[in-house]
């Protein structure tokens, strides 16, 4: 199960800092390749309804939301996610 780490106000919305999501088997592209990132995020919204519309909007990542997969920013939802992966989700943030 990929691990999802939440930051900023997503922690308060979800009530957790970190959780694991098990994509339904039908979502798996193959047992060895894993699921799509979009599929995992859809599953996350089902498991934590409070996140509905917070991360995704019309099937796309909402503006200013930053998602990294194992530390690398991802812009597309069709990237493959495997069980050992770490997904970090940041709401709109600024600073520096």
């Amino acid at each position, binding site marked *: 199960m990929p691990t999802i780490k939440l930051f900023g106000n997503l922690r308060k919305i979800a009530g957790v800092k970190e959780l694991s999501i098990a994509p339904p088997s039908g979502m798996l592209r193959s047992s060895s390749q894993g699921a799509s990132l979009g599929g995992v995020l859809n599953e996350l919204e089902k498991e934590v309804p409070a996140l509905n519309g917070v991360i995704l909007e019309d099937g796309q990542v909402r503006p200013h939301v930053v998602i990294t997969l194992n530390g*690398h*920013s991802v812009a597309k939802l069709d990237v493959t996610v495997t069980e050992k992966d770490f997904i*970090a989700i940041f*709401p*709109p*943030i*600024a*600073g520096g």
Partner: protein
Amino acid sequence: MNGWNGNILEIDLTTQTHKIHPLDMEVARLFLGGRGLGARLLWDIVGPEVNPLSPENALIFTTGPITASGSQTSNRFNVSTKSPLTDGILHANSGGWWGMQFKRTGYDALIVRGKADTPVLIEITGEGVAIKDASHLWGKGVFETTETLDQNRNKRNVLCIGPAGENLVRIAAIMNDKERALARGGPGAVMGSKNLKAIVVEGKEKNKPADPDQFKFMLYETGKLLKASPLTSQALPEFGTAVVMNVVNEIGALPTRNFQDSQFEYADNISGEEITDTILVKNQACWACPITCTRITKTKSGKEGEGPEFESAWAFGAQCGIHDLEAITEANYLCNDMGLDTISMGNTIGCAMELAEKGLIKEPLAFGQADKLLGLIEDTAHRRGFGDELAEGSYRMAAKHGAPELSMSVKKLEMPAYDPRGMQGQGLVFATGNRGACHETGNMLGPEVLALPRLIDRFATQGKAGIVSVHQNSAAVIDSLLYCKFANMAVAEEFFARTLSAITGVHFTADDLMMVGERVWNLERLYNIREGFGKADDTLPKRMLDEPVAEGPSKGFTVKLDPMLEEYYAFRGWNQNGVPKPQKLKELSLEFAIEVEND
């Protein structure tokens, strides 16, 4: 003309006299104010023969045409001088209230020259300009000095130095409104070298717009944008600047233990989220700012103050291998009271920790020693014991012990909280920074990490030169207008141009503003060339160029600087040695500086 007062106040502390010069309105049109006007004045006043800590150096405080207008974030001001840390051009700006109040005294800029025989303070009020004895304040901290001089947020504002500035610490800040800082590059030491403890201002002049109706419309439109953006209406108010700690760490670009690692295992313990959950008391805003990003915090020991901001939390945190947020916060408070730049202080302590762990100095220091922070800061401010070495900044300290390569600095200014091996464009920003390694003069966090305005490949080098140049020019014009850079996250240059036009009655476009930014950047570059800087100074610490990141998402990367630099010089219209070509200077109305190019 509206927007500018049209007056520059010059004070000579040696002769204890002052005079008022008219502001050249052509200079105002070309450089606007703030950092731009400061650079233009410094060019004429402080030449290459001047030692930064001599009476011949000048402190030039500048405001901009929008300052005190009431436009959102129109509270900032700038100081320009020759840096005692880098020996090059220095500009630093700060928020709060002092800038607004100084503009209301009827001046656009204040030039302080010379040196008083004994400690003095300057008071600028409706009664005039007075130079007063400040012997009773010498040695006092910033907090006590500010209170003693009757700081009154909207009526009377105090700018001062602490013991660090008095003791000519090269990383000393000038503080205003108690806890705001003109921090980087040692302007506090320049002020201390003049025996100038404080500048107190009280003013009543209004910055009235030339077109009140259009100005009101722009206030409304700008307010809408700031409210609509989740960055300025939610993220910054809720979590402050340190909310970026985790994302910078997650991608493997958070410098850790003097940049030996690029991820800190305890980053979350020192993040904006943790600050909000544990020590935050309330938010605070600078004058005329709806963003309210300032954090008023309180530690378990009962101490209360501002911060820490992201950079300060990193400097005393990951950079020193420390994850005790209370200790970090109190280190931040103490730096504010002593008048020290938190980035350079924390970075220099981290450098000392590595020197000690490698056996290059005999101090009992090691990464993770939270209990050492306060003592080291106090000793630095007073130049006591080993603090006398820390007071020189990391480069001079490390060089003294035969290891200058362990100083994580550029042009001797300590690097801020980004490991450029994981952000190649940021590496180019640091290497080419006119005041040294600086995140305020073209930060690539937006495009390389936060997808602002859109995500670009942080490991790519090709094409970065143009993006970096545009970001640098944009930062230069915002620093010349003296808007807050956070406002620029929601409000584009076009809106700044329209507000500026409404205030001054002079038509400015966004392109005009970007041209000002490029002009300012080139003039600063020429100033440094006149000081003897060259291509060899556009570099990074050896570690960034030769030591690949060992672990994490940036594993295996170094900064590929040379190809980016070559592309950068070409994009900027400079020759292969990084000197602006005469044609470029003519385009930018900088003909007066062509002689430097010919030298």
